């Protein structure tokens, strides 16, 4: 029985020949919420893109697996089919492709086995309702001319419809107002309470702890300069709130000295 979980082992990654991730060890178990926090430039998004298979990220060493399956040998679509979902900080626009068409195509690609059109429609409308999204959204082109909040809602809508095994949320809270953050939180929690969502393991990447007020983390990791320097419980997020990353950086340096 292979290890369950989204697992990185000594993962080292370069972008344009510059080493960004310097040996990441991380295990996100099914049904659990891991927060990955860190200052800008610490490598959080690099980890997200590497796991999802962005061609611009060069893996120097280590491994990344999903329930034992080697992710690093797979193209992005196969990783999605294996059960990985990435919510983008800056989702790309696809002009001319309607949200409805995109959702249907993605769902058929990831989970081709089920859902007649009527059931798919019901699923989409239920999820729209949870996210306080207007059904008119479906007729718009994917992320084309969307506000920041609309883009993040669409990411959450896709996650709910694809119901992955593991979801990496890259700065999903950035640029959101209180209302949008609340509906994003509500959508994640609704998914976690649903049958198909209860076993999803989350890696919530964030700069600020505020999304964790809506989606409580079981485990918090702090990443600085391409390394996870500290791992703890939810109280670690409170510590960041109190002393900031600079304070933590000093604390870590002091502990090493």
């Amino acid at each position, binding site marked *: 029985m292979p290890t369950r979980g989204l697992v990185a082992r000594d993962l080292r990654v370069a972008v344009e020949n510059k080493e960004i991730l310097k040996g990441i060890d991380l295990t996100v178990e099914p049904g659990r919420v891991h927060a990955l926090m860190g200052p800008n430039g610490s490598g959080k998004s690099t980890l997200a893109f590497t796991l999802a298979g962005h*061609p611009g990220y060069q893996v120097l060493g280590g491994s990344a697996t999903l329930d034992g399956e080697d992710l690093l040998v797979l*193209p*992005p*679509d196969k990783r999605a089919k294996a059960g990985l979902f990435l919510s*983008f900080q800056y989702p*790309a*626009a696809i*002009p*001319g492709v309607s949200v409805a068409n995109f959702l249907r195509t993605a769902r058929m690609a990831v989970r081709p086995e089920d859902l007649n059109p009527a059931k798919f429609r019901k699923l989409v409308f239920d999820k729209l309702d949870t996210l306080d999204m207007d059904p008119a959204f479906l007729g718009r*082109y994917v992320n084309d001319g969307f506000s920041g909040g609309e883009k993040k809602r669409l990411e959450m809508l896709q996650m709910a419809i694809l119901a992955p095994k593991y979801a990496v949320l890259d700065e999903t809270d950035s640029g959101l107002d209180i209302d949008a953050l609340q509906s994003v939180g509500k959508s994640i929690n609704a998914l976690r309470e649903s049958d198909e969502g209860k076993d999803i393991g989350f890696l919530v990447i964030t700069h600020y702890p505020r999304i964790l007020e809506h989606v409580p983390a079981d485990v918090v990791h702090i990443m600085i300069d391409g390394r996870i320097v500290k791992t703890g419980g939810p109280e670690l997020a409170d510590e960041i709130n109190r002393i900031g990353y600079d304070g933590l950086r000093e604390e870590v340096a002091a502990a090493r000295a």
Partner: protein
Amino acid sequence: MPSGTTETAAALDFTPTSATLDEVVAFLDELGQGSPNDVALRREALARYEALPAPGARPHRGWRYDYANLSFDELRWTSGSVATATMPARPAHRLDDPDVDRPALATENAGGLFFFGSMHVDAPGNVDPRVTVLPLDGSHAAGVMHEIVDWRADKFAALATAFRNCGAFVHVPDGVQLDTPIQLVFATAPDDQAVFPHIVVVLGKNARATVIERHVGDGDPFVAGIVEAQAGEGAQLDYVVVQQAGEAARVMFSRAARAERDAQVRWHLAELGGALVRTVLDARLEAPGGRAETSALFFNTGLQHVDLTSGVDHLVGPTTSDTVVRSAATDRGQGRYVGNIVIRPKAHGSDASLRDDALLLSKHAHIDSVPALEIAANDVKAFHGATIGSLDEDALFYAGTRGIARSAALRMITLGFFEPVVSRFPGEALRDEVRTALDRKLDDATEIDG
């Protein structure tokens, strides 16, 4: 030519010379279709053809085609009509499209005509009794025919005028608003033909109609045609061209429309087939309240070459125009788009928008974009925007993370690229037809994502 009996048919070897024109004139006399005015006009047009320089005198140096060196070898010029009985049910495989099949032509449309090469197929159609849809002869459409397309200024329009051998006349009287389209179908005959269609569309005051001009078939024709449309006061014309001629076809059209007070002319153009395609698409806004919308696309695969020029002439104000062009090329496809907007001194208060975007899908594909705005009036709004680019890698990756494989994402993004044009075509059936045709072109492309 189809087998069986033919009616009043004539055929001769075609060259663009006065010797051929003499033979044409003799044939027309024999058929009882010649008139002194017509003959004089044809001779003048041939003289213009000979005198005018080839268009695109300074083509891109990578262009394979040179209009000055077109070959007219082994082309046949024919005139007349064929009886229904001699018409094969499906003269070309693309006609198995139910929209194109003759029974559909007769039942789902307000009217239509079917041409096999230059031969009019003498098929009865249940034309809406309020409208006229007839094979064109010289007696129709005085004041419109030869008056809207400036054939004296364009080499191939002059050629088409000199050797006209088929055509259609569509008249929708004052106040008649049609719910179903009028279809004009040009199917390629099996032998190589020189086809010179001339289409005249006249909409009366407050009339409303959709005319669909189709080119289908697998032959190897040379087609040079003219379309002239007039939209009377308050009229609305949707004129659609779906060009799916065979892959060796050379198709050249000059199309122009004139909009009177408060009239709207909407061009919808999908250039999908042919080896060498040249299209000129003009709109003249001659009275206040006139509006022109131009929506055009081409997608060049293999060795296809499409050369599209659109023009909107704001003669008076306030008039409005909106031009949207999307072009893509892959394999060794080549294209050029020239977009002209002219706002004349009297066109105060006019509003013109021109937007063209090109997508290159392979490293050997090439598209030129040449926009030109000429504004001579004050107090006008004019917008122009153009892009040429390749596929958005961020979008491909994004779709990939949703489980959509690169090849499928590429198809989705490419089809989406055309959507701003396709979505302006009238009717969901027509839009789906164009989408399907674009999708098939992606199947045919050999060098995509390269």
